[in-house]
């Protein structure tokens, strides 16, 4: 692999290099091996990886894109490396954070001490559209609100930072496993030599975690994965996970509630369902409680859930904890609930609901990233440094009209990692999304869905916005 044109920038943290041409210790062996590969070998591997995704139908759908219903997520075959010690540090931070967020959710749907004690203003929580009144006073199995969390992590020279906590229906884990399978097959010897930590036990850990939620500890619970259907952008993942955990892949139409219990329609009659891994948003879960026009959900599901006859993972209402406004308070929550200093830092966040933050944001639009509180997937955001004056003017008007709907953050110099571009190595910005499972205990496989902004200079890693994937190797070297 040709690294001669690699554009090392000391201002940006590089995942492989500590200085120009000087690899980090844990990357040295992989770097030397990649560099020693004959020209064209990696291209062949890259083609094989892409072809395997196509043949196995590992696809996603872009909303509103009727022409390209099934798209392949571009994958770069050069792995991103993380030392095991770095991973352990990250893992400890993730465990601390998920403990905090579960305590927060129990609190905001319970006594609301966090508000009464003045840690978070009431209007931040009650004004959040993801706060579900229907969940007030509801208990959840083992006090676990967030069973599956996919935290977006970025790295700068200052270390790891949390960009977003995805606590509703985080996706991407299937790509973590698919990327691993494909890249491992392409770089067999290198993989073996690098002592890479395994991620393929994710399915069995997820199954174990979901089984721990079984109502009343019912043995050998019946699991179902509730999908919005085949047109959902993450349908491949739903199918993949259902297969991995031995669950039925159900749609709302397959389920019904009778006398407070949930049943699915099988070929031999109605069968009780104990745990539902739902990949349907809160709004669509139960038309009797949430949106009454929903055809994706199950009438009466919330009743069964509240009576403790079925477990839902994640619990409804978790979105209040990954709201972009609430996010700004997570470090305070860690101190409040655990009495500890946060191990993982947040990105500095300005809440435009505060007049001084709004003023700061408007004054610095060309330097900031501004996001809508309720949007995700890279939609509805302005990346200041990459915007035109006209775009900023337009955005400022929208921002002024409803400031509470926006936050702003500095444009981060996201770390970069080598990618195979046009046959040689070029740096591209990356983030990572590890998946945190919480049942009786918290479990994290040592790996992540690593997203990469494949367009030169782009900071947007979302697959819907031109991003791709990479395999993350946690190496014990």
């Amino acid at each position: 692999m040709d690294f001669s044109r690699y554009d090392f920038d000391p201002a940006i943290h590089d995942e492989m290099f500590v200085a120009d041409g000087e690899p980090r210790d844990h990357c040295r062996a992989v770097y030397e091996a990649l560099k020693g590969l004959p020209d064209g070998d990696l291209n062949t591997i890259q083609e094989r990886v892409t072809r395997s995704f196509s043949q196995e139908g590992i696809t996603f759908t872009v909303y509103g894109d009727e022409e390209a219903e099934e798209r392949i997520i571009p994958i770069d075959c050069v792995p991103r490396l993380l030392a095991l010690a770095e991973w352990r540090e990250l893992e400890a931070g993730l465990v601390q954070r998920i403990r905090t967020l579960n305590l927060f959710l129990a609190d905001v749907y319970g006594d609301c001490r966090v508000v009464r004690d003045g840690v978070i203003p009431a209007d931040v929580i009650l004004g959040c559209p993801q706060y579900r009144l229907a969940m007030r006073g509801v208990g959840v199995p083992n006090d676990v609100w967030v069973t599956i969390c996919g935290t977006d992590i970025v790295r700068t020279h200052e270390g790891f930072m949390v960009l977003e906590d995805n606590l509703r229906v985080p996706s991407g884990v299937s790509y973590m496993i698919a990327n691993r399978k494909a890249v491992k097959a392409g770089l067999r010897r290198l993989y073996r030599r690098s002592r890479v930590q395994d991620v393929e036990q994710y399915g069995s850990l997820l199954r174990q975690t979901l089984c721990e939620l079984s109502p009343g500890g019912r043995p050998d619970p019946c699991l179902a994965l509730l999908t919005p259907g085949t047109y959902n952008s993450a349908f491949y993942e739903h199918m993949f996970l259902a297969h991995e955990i031995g669950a039925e892949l159900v749609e709302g139409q397959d389920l019904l509630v009778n006398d407070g219990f949930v049943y699915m329609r099988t070929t031999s009659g109605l069968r009780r369902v104990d745990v539902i891994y739902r990949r349907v948003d809160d709004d669509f879960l139960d038309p009797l409680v949430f949106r009454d026009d929903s055809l994706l959900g199950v009438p009466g599901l919330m009743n069964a859930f509240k009576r403790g006859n079925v477990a839902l993972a994640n619990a409804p209402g978790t979105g209040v904890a990954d709201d972009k406004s609430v996010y700004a308070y997570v470090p305070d929550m860690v101190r409040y609930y655990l009495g500890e200093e946060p191990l993982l830092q947040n990105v500095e966040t300005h809440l435009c609901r505060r007049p001084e933050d709004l003023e700061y944001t408007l004054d610095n639009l060309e330097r900031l990233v501004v996001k809508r509180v309720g949007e995700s997937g890279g939609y509805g955001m302005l990346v200041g440094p990459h915007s035109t004056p006209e775009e900023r003017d337009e955005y400022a008007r929208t921002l002024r009209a409803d400031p509470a709907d926006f936050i702003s953050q500095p444009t981060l110099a996201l770390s970069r990692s080598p990618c195979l571009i046009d046959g040689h190595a070029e740096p591209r910005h990356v983030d990572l999304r590890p998946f945190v499972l919480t049942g009786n205990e918290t479990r994290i496989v040592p790996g992540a869905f690593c997203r990469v902004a494949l367009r030169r200079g782009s900071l947007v890693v979302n697959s819907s916005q031109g991003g791709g994937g990479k395999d993350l190797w946690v190496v014990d070297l």
Partner: protein
Amino acid sequence: MLARSAQGVYWMARYLARAGYLSRLLELQVQFLVDRSVEEIHFGWKRIYRCMKRLPPPGEEFLPETDEFALADAFTLADDLTFERSNPDSVWSTVASGRENARQMRHCISGEMWTCLNAAWLRIRDLEAVDIWRTPEVFYARTRSEIHNFVGVADATMYRGAAWRFMRLGRAIERAQLAVSLLLAQIDLSRRTERRTLGWASMLRTHHALEAYGRVYGIDLQPDRVLDLLVADPSLPGSVLATVQAAATELQGLDGGPGVEADAAARRLAGRAEALILYDWPEASAPEELLEQVGQSTRDLHEAVLDAFVDYAIEDSPLR
């Protein structure tokens, strides 16, 4: 098994069986274009369209027998039966539908089956008639072979659970219906020609039965014997009897549906189709009438299977 999943694998198998059968018919038909008479070529097209219960592109059953343009029109007909997106029974549409059902039910089939089918789909997805027209028989043979591969891969890798049974049931019912339909078309069309044996050899080839016929009856081709072989020989995998027996076997292997009556109705219909051939066929004075009855039984069986296992009334179901 989830009722909707059972329905998905059942339809997957039906669509793919249809795609394979039609590919075989077209493979032989395009071979005819090379060296057969216009009459025989016309006969072949008519038989295919009758079998698929479709009218050719002009919208009526078509072209006088002497029409010399038949050869030139073969491209349009083949295109209509192969790549026409608006024809739900074209090869392209049936592979697409089979693959889409498989995509939605991937967790019910083996990964190898999915990969095999998806590769076939990716090959034909962007093709058009003009792309295959230099050697169309190669395309049809390959498509048929890919579907055979899929069935073989399923046999080698799929767990023998309810999904397996529903898949085999779908395949058997589809093959039975197609075989009956083609036989009825052949009987009717051959009555209208002076050449008594026209089309019967290709009936054997369609069902991969040429060698079997020679082994059982020798080289003398007699329509009655061909008909007997294709309808009532249990040792010929594509015979009507073998396919209805396969359907009955798969149904027997399934756990009962929630409604006792609907479940019994499905099993009774499978038995009836089999009994018609086993006991009535040898004495039948009007074979097409009996074949019509068998065909109706298989259509009823399809409805009964869905009633018993998928669309049953919730009140019929015990809570488990």
